[in-house]
């Protein structure tokens, strides 16, 4: 059965990859345009007046945050919209009828989310090279935090897709929850700049840990201890994975 499951995983991952590549103009181009604008407006024009932050130019400081922001958005929206579309068009039934275990279904969608966020991450990094030279403090931390973040937000997107009953439900969470948390998660500023009260509040924002960890990997500066940052990400991944597994296994929104 292992070989069968591996073939099924490859099939589902390939299907998911084909999906976002087929609609590349919707999935790959918008984050590149948005982050390019951020680089030009915040990094280049306004950044020059802000000066240094944590010992780096403002442009250098926001690059890791902007890469993470596009990774979070891409992985989340890829899985939430793909899963919901399959539910809406009923072709999720292809998977439910087939001998595909829930773990394979989850990983098939997550691999799709990771793939799209890797592509978007590479494109955004390439754009950043027009403004700042590439520097990496620790490749292992960069890869680890990148993967953990894309897995975590793919799983969060999957959860959204499971509960969603309309296309509105798929767009509400990114607009009203994900975007504010990302902007307040330290993309454009160091958490240490906030007043003490808001620093405490920020500790409840999981995105703070992802951006902080990734920024450490790139620049070597940190808001939160790196080990703590990674532990928080792993905890969220495990919790979301278990919830998704339980809901799909029980057929929440999938089986009557």
């Amino acid at each position: 059965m292992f070989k069968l499951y591996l073939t099924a995983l490859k099939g589902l991952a390939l299907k998911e990859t084909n999906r976002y590549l087929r609609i590349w103009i919707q999935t790959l181009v918008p984050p590149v345009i948005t982050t390019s604008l951020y680089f030009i407006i915040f990094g280049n024009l306004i950044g020059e007046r802000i000066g240094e932050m944590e010992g780096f130019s403002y442009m250098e400081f926001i690059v890791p945050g902007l890469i993470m922001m596009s990774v979070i958005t891409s992985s989340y929206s890829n899985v939430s919209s793909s899963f919901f579309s399959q539910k809406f068009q009923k072709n999720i039934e292809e998977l439910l009828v087939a001998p595909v275990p829930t773990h394979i279904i989850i990983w098939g969608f997550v691999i799709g989310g990771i793939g799209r966020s890797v592509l978007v991450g590479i494109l955004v990094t390439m754009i950043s090279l027009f403004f700042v030279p590439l520097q990496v403090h620790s490749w292992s931390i960069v890869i680890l935090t990148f993967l953990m973040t894309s897995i975590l937000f793919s799983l969060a997107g999957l959860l959204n897709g499971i509960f969603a009953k309309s296309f509105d439900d798929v767009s509400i969470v990114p607009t009203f929850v994900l975007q504010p948390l990302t902007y307040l998660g330290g993309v454009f500023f160091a958490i240490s700049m906030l007043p003490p009260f808001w620093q405490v509040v920020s500790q409840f924002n999981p995105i703070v840990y992802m951006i902080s960890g990734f920024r450490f990997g790139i620049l070597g500066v940190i808001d939160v201890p790196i080990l703590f940052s990674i532990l928080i990400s792993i905890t969220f991944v495990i919790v979301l994975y278990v919830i998704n597994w339980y809901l799909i296994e029980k057929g929440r929104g999938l089986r009557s």
Partner: protein
Amino acid sequence: MTYALEIKDLKKVYAGGVEALRGIDLKVEEGDFYALLGPNGAGKSTTIGIVTSLVNKTSGKVNVFGYDMDTQLMQAKLQIGLVPQEFNFSPFETVRQIVLNQAGYYGVSRKEALKRSEKYLKQSDLWEKRNVQAQMLSGGMKRRLMISRALMHEPRLLILDEPTAGVDIELRREMWTFLKELNENGTTIILTTHYLEEAEMLCRNIGIIQKGQLIEDTSMKSLLAKLQYETIILDIDSSGQAPVIKGYTSELMDDGSLSVEVARNQGINEVFNQLTEQGIKVLSMRNKSNRLEELFLKLTEETA
């Protein structure tokens, strides 16, 4: 004996309290061509939904080729191919992508899947359309695509939920020929349909579901033997007066045709003799409705 499908005391109560299945027992032998009939809402689709893992059962047992769906679900699923009632493929994928994906979900290697996709798409006359997005296909082509998709892992049990709904007569007959061949080559087929003529033409055995219960489970032959009479419509050339046919119940219809009830052992020669004696010419003759349809209506009315 191992059955292709064995259902024991299957019950389903939906969240709103609707009792869709009230304890169904059903056995379909390997190699059978079995028709599952019933009026809308009788429980056919719920039964098929449970067998194909699209609906959670409330209680009961389902075995597919001896594999218990509670404890050997994956092995059981491997045996089944489903052609659902509604189109449920991605409209944006190409015809070939759809069948290849399906093969992958069942563990068929890419190399083998490519071979099979050619075989089944050619068989269903879709090979020329293999690179076309599924949304561009006609209704009939979409139906054939769903059959090709279901065959990609070469299932031992093929379940078709109203496969010819909305399909024109020519295509329907082509599909019948194809399904008959498939069955002759050893695939067990379970079919639900509203076209009772289809069930009569194709199936050896038949089950009728009414209000969540199996009210009939027998061979097509013995079911049709239960017919006590048939109604025949005669287009006659008469003056407009209702002819009297002794020994038969007859009625002159609004369109001038004559409806005659003929009992199983009566024969129809006597009807013609009497009409000839009265100088009435019979222009043509047909059945009032499908034989099975009459029986089906009778059975479902009795249990209503």
